[in-house]
């Protein structure tokens, strides 16, 4: 024991200074107050150094800081809110203004596209190809778009995670994934010697599939349009990052894909699209030009429609004035016009007026019920149709009385008077203003007959055969006269005057002249002229040389009045 004491003594002797320093140091470390004081002194320098050498310190600080913030916010959020306010305010404003800007841009784009010449072209194309307008716009204005991203396990070809853009079917993704892997294998086995560069791009119709092969996972993206080459770099970086994040899960994959759900966020970052920049001013010009054009078109259409309507109503007004046509209803139905009412069969058809109003006759349908008009025009029309009056006669109607003017054969009047009187709308007829054409005939015949001279030989009362033709002519004219008289309801007396020449004595000449007249009477009677219409007189010696040895015929009109 004493031996040990000696050693302690020796230690104190040799190391007394070091020991006291060591004690001081121990005190500094053991007492928390003292130690923290010491650490506080070096901490800023220590952080600075640690940060400059590696990012280990910031990584290890993350959980602590997160916890601290969480604790602070759940205890009393105000100090944190106050602290963040100067940063959050502008950030929120910026985010809102960005959102509004993009909203305006999308509205602008929509207007531009719908109203520009190109927009109209696309609409037409959409109509022709039966695709939706949105699809056409997308196809035309898209530079490229990612439709789908497949995150595939390299060894098994099984699909670990799949993200798609809206409207893309997803139910067959598992099979597509495996088949992609099979094709990769096939290409690798068949064409690639060292396994270095595998199939990178597959083109399927309008789509491209870009494949980024990693040791444990494959990223395959289905793309529309023409993606830029830098997108491949983005793809590679994403696959590297996924390899890093899911390294153990990829190595130990047993078919359960749930562990890869967190990859969704990273995959969504790949769902990018890029649109073509648009030439603004030109687009706006065409946009406005289209608006104005459409407005003019609409105005023109409205005006044309108004004009059409106005023409139709003018037409109906005119049709209403057609005698024998009554319009009860007219309307526009779809693109056609319907006209309903009553129409006298003899009235003019309203369709004959369509041309004057520039109305398409195929667009108008008439629905008329027949009726007999009592309008004067229609009565006269009907009269003309039924009795065909001579063109020399004209009619007018006043208070239901038909008045006739002009000249007409009495024969026609007699035949048709009853028919006319019985026609609807006619109460009475008045033909007093009509000159009957038979009157003329009678007058002419009387004159003609009066000029006929039947001559006799000196001292004779027997008729010379030379005079037979003369007698026949007389007979024919008398026949006509009597017949016409019947039409006119007029009777005549045929007066035969016999004359002699001055030779011989007066009483013999009176006898002779009387016998000559008698002779003609009996001749006419034999030819069929009724005897009781004939009167004879021997006139004795004719003073007028022209009448000597002649028989003269005079017609006496027996007036009925």
């Amino acid at each position: 024991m004493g031996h040990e004491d000696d050693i302690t003594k020796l230690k104190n002797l040799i190391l007394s200074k070091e020991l006291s320093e060591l004690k001081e140091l121990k005190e500094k470390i053991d007492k928390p107050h003292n130690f923290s004081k010491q650490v506080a002194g070096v901490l800023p320098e220590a952080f600075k150094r640690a940060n400059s050498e590696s990012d280990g310190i910031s990584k290890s600080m993350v959980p602590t800081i997160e916890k601290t913030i969480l604790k602070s916010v759940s205890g009393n959020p105000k100090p944190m809110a106050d602290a963040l306010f100067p940063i959050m305010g502008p950030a929120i404003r910026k985010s809102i203004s960005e959102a509004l800007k993009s909203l305006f841009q999308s509205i602008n784009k929509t207007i531009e596209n719908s109203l520009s010449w190109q927009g109209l072209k696309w609409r037409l194309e959409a109509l022709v190809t039966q695709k939706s307008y949105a699809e056409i716009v997308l196809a035309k204005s898209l530079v490229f778009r990612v439709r789908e991203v497949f995150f595939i396990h390299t060894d098994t070809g099984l699909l670990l995670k799949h993200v798609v853009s809206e409207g893309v079917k997803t139910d067959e993704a598992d099979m597509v994934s495996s088949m992609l892997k099979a094709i990769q294998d096939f290409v690798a086995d068949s064409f690639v010697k060292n396994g270095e560069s595998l199939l990178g791009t597959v083109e399927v119709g309008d789509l491209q599939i870009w494949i980024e092969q990693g040791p444990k996972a494959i990223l395959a993206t289905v793309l529309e349009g023409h993606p830029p080459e830098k997108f491949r770099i983005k793809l590679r970086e994403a696959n590297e990052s996924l390899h890093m994040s899911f390294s153990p899960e990829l190595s130990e994959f047993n078919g359960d894909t749930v562990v890869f759900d967190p990859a969704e966020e990273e995959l969504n970052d790949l769902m990018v699209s890029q649109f073509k920049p648009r030439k603004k001013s030109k687009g706006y010009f065409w946009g406005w030009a289209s608006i104005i054009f459409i407005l003019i078109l609409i105005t023109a259409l409205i005006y044309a429609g108004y004009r059409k309507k106005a023409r139709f109503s003018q037409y109906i007004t005119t049709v209403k004035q057609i005698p024998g046509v009554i319009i009860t209803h007219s309307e526009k139905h779809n693109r056609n016009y319907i006209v309903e009412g009553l129409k006298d069969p003899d009235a003019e058809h309203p369709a004959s007026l369509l041309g004057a109003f520039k109305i398409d006759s195929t667009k108008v349908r008439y629905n008329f019920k027949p009726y007999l008009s009592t309008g004067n025009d229609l009565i006269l029309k009907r009269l003309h149709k039924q009795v065909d009056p001579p063109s020399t006669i004209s009619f007018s109607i006043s208070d239901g009385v038909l008045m006739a003017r002009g000249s007409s054969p009495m024969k026609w009047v007699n035949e048709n008077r009853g028919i006319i009187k019985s026609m609807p709308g006619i109460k009475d007829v008045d033909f007093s203003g009509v000159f009957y054409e038979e009157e003329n005939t009678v007058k002419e015949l009387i004159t003609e007959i009066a000029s006929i001279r039947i001559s006799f030989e000196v001292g004779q009362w027997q008729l010379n055969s030379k005079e037979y033709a003369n007698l026949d002519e007389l007979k024919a004219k008398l026949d006509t006269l009597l017949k016409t008289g019947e039409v006119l309801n007029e009777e005549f007396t045929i007066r035969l005057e016999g004359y002699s020449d001055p030779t011989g004595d007066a009483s013999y000449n009176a006898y002779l002249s009387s016998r000559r007249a008698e002779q003609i009477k009996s001749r006419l009677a034999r030819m069929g002229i009724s005897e009781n219409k004939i009167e004879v007189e021997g006139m004795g010696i004719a003073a007028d040389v022209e009448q000597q040895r002649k028989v003269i015929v005079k017609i006496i009109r027996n007036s009925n009045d």
Partner: protein
Amino acid sequence: MIKKKICLIGSYAVGKTSLVRRFVHSIFSDKYHSTIGVKVDQKTIIVDGEEITLLIWDIHGEDEYQKIQPSYLKGSSGFFLVIDGTRAMTKDVAFKLYDLVIEKTGEMPCEVLINKYDLKDSWAMYKKDINEISKIIKPPFFTSAKTGENVEEAFNSLARAML
């Protein structure tokens, strides 16, 4: 959700494709067989209350002119070995293929299917063949693509072995 890759292999014309056609969801044309030598179909089944999606790699049959591509076997969790019950030589091909698979992928669940069981008149698998298969690989299922006999059972058995 659990997904598994399985392979369907066998000699030429043993009826692999017809065997699964009625039981799987298929979107790819059969012409992939003659071009790249494989076609993938899908079948979802429920085993012991768990849904499992099988991606079935129907690999073009092996004959003296065409070998199966070993890379298609990679990553499989199980496989079907199909033998034509009317052609004895397809059994020998099956043994060869079995060895190939084990060599390339290591031990894994397998079911042996002796197909065309409906063609009993031209049957060519005898008791000693069955014993041989049972001894070297495992007792087989007798299946018929025509009647569907035992096909679902084989799928369920393989799926259960893989879980």
